[in-house]
């Protein structure tokens, strides 16, 4: 999956209509809440990436989510 495809998938998983870029601050997305985090965890799990809620603490941008997905 390319970086652009990953960003597109993230937007779908957290169900946002905002146009995401690596620089998009997560706090600017009203959809980024605890359910979004659980959704992202399910998605990471499907990709074979094991993450815990604490791994999401301190993440500031979409680029941080990409870094988490890339291990």
């Amino acid at each position, binding site marked *: 999956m390319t970086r652009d495809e990953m960003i597109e998938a993230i937007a779908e*998983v957290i*169900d946002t209509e905002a146009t995401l870029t690596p620089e998009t601050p997560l706090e600017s997305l009203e959809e980024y809440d605890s*359910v*979004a985090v*659980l*959704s992202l965890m*399910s*998605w990471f799990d499907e990709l074979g990436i094991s993450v*815990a*809620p604490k791994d999401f603490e301190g993440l500031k941008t979409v680029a941080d989510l990409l870094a988490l997905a890339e291990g």
Partner: protein
Amino acid sequence: MDNVLVVGASSGIGRATALRLAGRYRVFAMARRADRLEALTTEGIVPVAFDVTRFDEITPTLKDLAKEYGRFQALIYCAGVQNLKPLRMLKATDLETIFAVNTYAPALFAQAFAARAVHTKENPSMVFVSSIAAQRPEPVILAYSASKAALDNMVKGLAKEVAPIRVNGVAPGFLRTEMTKRFAHVYDEAFVERVEKSYPLGLGSVENVAALIDFLVSDDAAYLTGEIIRIDGGGAL
């Protein structure tokens, strides 16, 4: 000594129930993995390796057991699966897996137990382990809650259809079990602490639920059927 069959006996409520009844009943403990039942054999419990999703084999298996060891006074169905998925991540396969174990298999075990060749004439009964989530669904466990709500409904329908076999359910609140420990990232210490504070009687144990099941299969409950008894320390109040 009467025979009882505990389905899903390798851990949690099923295991606690098998251990509690052992000695007073001849307990047949069923689980998918035989190796996980070995520790129970020292208590005189008979292990039965069986995957509850082998739907077509449920009735023949129970008939064979009854033929070989005698009929069963009680069927206690404790097997259950859960996952934590927000609606948008839920897939048809998640629903299939959860309903297979939590709803379809108990219906087919009930069918098997209701066969004349399988249950005793004296005080035959079935008990199914439901959950308070059946009546109080929560986010991210929609499939689990719905599967248990279907089970609750089935308990009542079965109680009418298969009388004089008694059919009851137990609906525990949150418990620390292997099933919930699998989701320790969500059911973490902070969550457990919140539960402990919000339940008037604090956090319960699988042994509390086993004690209620013990009562439900006993002669003392001989006039009780079609009930799903909440056992959550008052958590749902």
